[in-house]
Structure formats: structure tokens, C-alpha cells
């Protein structure tokens, strides 16, 4: 379980440490030693055969440190790829132990660290540990370590997590800032999904039905299967506006893309709809 304590611990452990440490320090030391022995063979006061063997050993040590660094990096990449696949398939039980293992030591590459932390936050959200997810998003944004897309995702998901942890004022302020930003359509679609969730939670969704068609188009064009979440939230908006036909149609589309159980697990606000409108039949 990714609790707040786990999140705090992994954020701290995965943070890259400044200065020369570990393998870099060993590499520097061995290089200096090798150069010194090449410049002056008597520098260590060794006698044959140690005098002959010492530079070879230092050279082999350098090669060994470099090769082990490469092997470690490749192993990390392989595990990170497995995390990426598990997250895509929403196999959180498979992703969690890998993430814990990867984030338990410093991750030097900022984008890889941001990606892993985003994965950990997704696991926390799937376990409904929203405080932990919120802390992770805040740490990514606080460190500003990640590419622009990762930082945007962290901002949007932070707003979503704050809606869950009851920090509604901050969530609304953040979403308003995101809505004002000049974003490309695929990124706007993510913002609109969370903005719609905010409206459903605050009971304002039925007041913004004028935006429904534009939102539906955005979700369809840019969210892939996740558009189903958007359709579900739009169905909730129409339901509250007492427009059952539109709500029924949207609920059908939502459940055609995503199974009802998964929809309800992600957005418990949709529970009233599940009993009220028929879900799509899955022919597979």
C-alpha cells in the first residue's frame, strides 16, 4: 500500500544526491591512482611483481566500475519499462513492488524519476490513497524535475487529488489557472476532464452543459479509451440537469468503453447512475 509515509520515504530516497558519491568517487580515485603510477612507478613504493600488477589492477577497476554503471543503468531502464507497461495495463499490483524497488535508491535522470513518481502516484490513486498521491505530485512540481509534459500531468493530477482530499479552494484555483493557459488540445482534454469532475463534485455540472458538446469532442479526439471517464461524468451532469435521455446515452457510451466497475472505482460520483441507467452490453 502506498501510504503517505511510503510516499515521503520514496521521494526522499530517490532524490539525487549532490557531489561525487559511490561509483563516481571510486572512478575518480582509481583514475588519479593510475595516472600517478604511470607518471612515477615508485609513487606507492611497491616492489615487483606488485609494482607491475598495481597499474593493471587500477585499470581493470576503472573498466569494472564503468561496466557496472552501464549494467545498472540498463537494469533500471528494463525495470522502468516494466513499470511503464504495468501502468498502461493498469496492473497496479505488478507496478507497485517495481516502483518501490526503483525509487528506494537515488534516480539520477530527472525525467525517469518524474515518470516513476507519476507511476507511484497512479498506484496511490488506484488504492484511493489520495494524500500520498497529492504529496507525490507536489514534490514533482516543487523540484521542477521533469519535462514540460510530465509537469503538466503532475499539475492536472494534483488538482484531481486535491479535489479528493477536500482542498477544494486550492483545486479550483489550480484548475482555473490551467484553464486560462494556452494549451494544445490533447493537454486541454486532460484539464477539461478534471474540471468536469470538479463541477460534478461541487454540484455545478448541470450549469455548464453548454460546454458538453465541445468537451465530448475533446475527450473523443484526445483521451482514447479514457474518454469513457469523460462520458460518464457528462452523463452525471445531464442526470443532475434532469435530462435522462442524454444521460442514458452517455452512460451507455461510457460503459461501452470502460467497464462500470472500473468507472465507479475511479469516480465514485457515478454510483447513482449505475443503478439508474442500463449499461452497455459487452459482446466479448
Amino acid at each position, binding site marked *: 500500500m502506498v501510504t503517505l509515509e511510503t510516499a515521503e520515504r520514496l521521494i526522499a530516497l530517490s532524490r539525487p544526491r549532490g557531489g561525487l558519491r559511490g561509483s563516481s568517487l571510486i572512478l575518480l580515485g582509481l583514475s588519479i591512482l*593510475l*595516472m600517478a603510477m*604511470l*607518471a612515477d*612507478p615508485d609513487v606507492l613504493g611497491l616492489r615487483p611483481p606488485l609494482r607491475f600488477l598495481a597499474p593493471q589492477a587500477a585499470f581493470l577497476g576503472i573498466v569494472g566500475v564503468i561496466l557496472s554503471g552501464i549494467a545498472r543503468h540498463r537494469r533500471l531502464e528494463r525495470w522502468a*519499462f516494466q513499470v511503464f*507497461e504495468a501502468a*498502461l*495495463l493498469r496492473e497496479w499490483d505488478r507496478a507497485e513492488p517495481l516502483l518501490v524497488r526503483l525509487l528506494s535508491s537515488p534516480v539520477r535522470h530527472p525525467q525517469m524519476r518524474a515518470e516513476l513518481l507519476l507511476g507511484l502516484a497512479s498506484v496511490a490513486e488506484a488504492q484511493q490513497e489520495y494524500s500520498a498521491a497529492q504529496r507525490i505530485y507536489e514534490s514533482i512540481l516543487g523540484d521542477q524535475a521533469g519535462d514540460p509534459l510530465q509537469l503538466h500531468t503532475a499539475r492536472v493530477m494534483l488538482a484531481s487529488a486535491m479535489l479528493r482530499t477536500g482542498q477544494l479552494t486550492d483545486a479550483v484555483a489550480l484548475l482555473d489557472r490551467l484553464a486560462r493557459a494556452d494549451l494544445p488540445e490533447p493537454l486541454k482534454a486532460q484539464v477539461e476532464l478534471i474540471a468536469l469532475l470538479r463541477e460534478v463534485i461541487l454540484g455545478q455540472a448541470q450549469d455548464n452543459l453548454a460546454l458538453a*458538446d465541445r468537451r*465530448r469532442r475533446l475527450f*473523443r*479526439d*484526445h*483521451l*482514447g*479509451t479514457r*474518454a469513457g471517464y469523460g462520458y460518464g461524468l457528462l452523463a452525471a451532469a445531464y442526470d443532475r440537469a434532469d435530462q435522462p435521455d442524454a444521460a442514458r*446515452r*452517455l452512460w451507455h*457510451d461510457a460503459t*461501452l*468503453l470502460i467497464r462500470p466497475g472500473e468507472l465507479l472505482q475511479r469516480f465514485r460520483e457515478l454510483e447513482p447512475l449505475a443503478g439508474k441507467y442500463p449499461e452497455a*452490453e*459487452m*459482446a*466479448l
Partner: protein
Amino acid sequence: MSPSTIELLVRGFRRSVAAARAVRILLTAAFCVLVIWALQLPEPQARRALGLLVLGGLVLWAGAIIRSVRLTRELQTGNMLMAMGRLDDAEACLGRVLRRFSLSPQVKFLVFQQLAALFFQRQRHDDVVIVCHELLRQPIRRLHGVWLNTRLLLADVLLLEDRVAEAYGAMRPVYDAPLTLTDRMKLLPIQLRYELASNHAESAVGGLAEKVRIAELLESPAAGLVHALLAEACRRLSRPAQQAFLAERARLYCDLAPIARRYPVIAPIAAEAPADPG
């Protein structure tokens, strides 16, 4: 691009890859000769010469890495320009990277593959075929990503040109390679198009649930295409319930009409589905 220009491009690529290989071999040989020469020098000059050689080798190695990183960054700029639809700028950028010298042929392979992708976006199918064939003549097998993308791109273009048997030849080795989930996501639409083009609808619907699960991970247009292809396979096999389900899902992902213009194989499904949901 006229045939002579694409030929010039291919010749330039071959030259740059050969030059990179030749310089690597020359440098390695020169290093070995210098080491042997240094070992024959009297003490203490021998040690100093060896030290300088090691230092020089390291500096050269670091320089080559920095050069490769710079070229890779320029390549990323080209990719970004392509993603933004600025194809002329992307082509100019990729052409520049291709002309620059690098000790690493891998960078050249990556650039050439991106050029093939750019030609694909411009629907210059003949150029894509030439570039992909040239890449497959190079030793790119251990660069799994480049190898796989090149084969899939080639198969994609050949299917668009109705050269089904050749497309199969391009795809066939992919099935023998270990594939990640991302690889399978890239393969699925092309595999289904091949299976429908060669009238193997039965194969297309094999493992249907797993195929739908992979399709769900794709972006909207690709997910819509895969659902429509599966629906078409079900239509051919007279499975109306599954056909209706898949066609309805396809409609939820994207408008099928523009996709059907590019891939006429889904035209029967596009014709029966409403253009806009809701």
C-alpha cells in the same frame, strides 16, 4: 523528391555510414600501433607515452559521445517539428543531421528511419520503400527499435500500395522477435490490415479479447481503426453481435469516414456507422 534526389540521399547515407566505420577502424588500428610503439620506448618515456595515449583515447571517446548526444538532440528537434506538422523544417533538420559526421552509425540509422517516417507522412510511398530497404541492408538487427519500426513502416506502406505478399515478407521476421507491449501496439493495426487484405479474417479475430485490450491502449484514431478492422473481420465471418459491438466502439473513438478513405478495407464498417456519436 525526384528519383535522382532520393538516390543521392541514399548514396550520402551509405557514404556517411561507411566513413564512420572506416574512421573507427583507423582510430582503433592507430591506437594499437601507438601502444606497441610506446611499449618499445625506453623508461620512463614509455610510461609517459602510454599515459598520454590513455588520456588521448579517453578525450577522443568523450568527444565522440558528446558529438553523438548533440546529433541526437538535433534529431529530437526534427521529431518535434514533424509532430508539429512542420514537415519542410523537419526534413531540412534531418538532412542537416544526416550530412554531419559522427563516429556512431547508430545515429545515422535513427535519422534515416525518421526520414522514412517523414516521407510516410508526406505519402511519398516509393521513397519510404527505398529508404526502408536501404536501412534493412544495414546491420540494424541489434537496434531492436529501429529494426522493428523500419519493418513495420515498410509493411504499412506496402499494404497501402496493395503489395500484400511483399508486406508479409517485411513483417514476417517481426513474429520471431521478442515483442514488448509497445511493439505489439505498433504491430496490431498493420497485422490486422494484412490479415484482411489476404482474406484471413479467421486469423484476425483469433485472440479477440486480447486484441481489443491492446487496442484500448492506443490513441483515439489508431484505436478506432483497430476496432473497425476487427469489426470488418467479424462481418466477413458473419458474427453480427461482435461486429456491431466493435463498430459501435470504433465510432466512439473517432470519425471513421476519413480513416476509411485511407484504409478502404474498413469502408463497409464506416458506411454503416453514424459519422458522429451522441
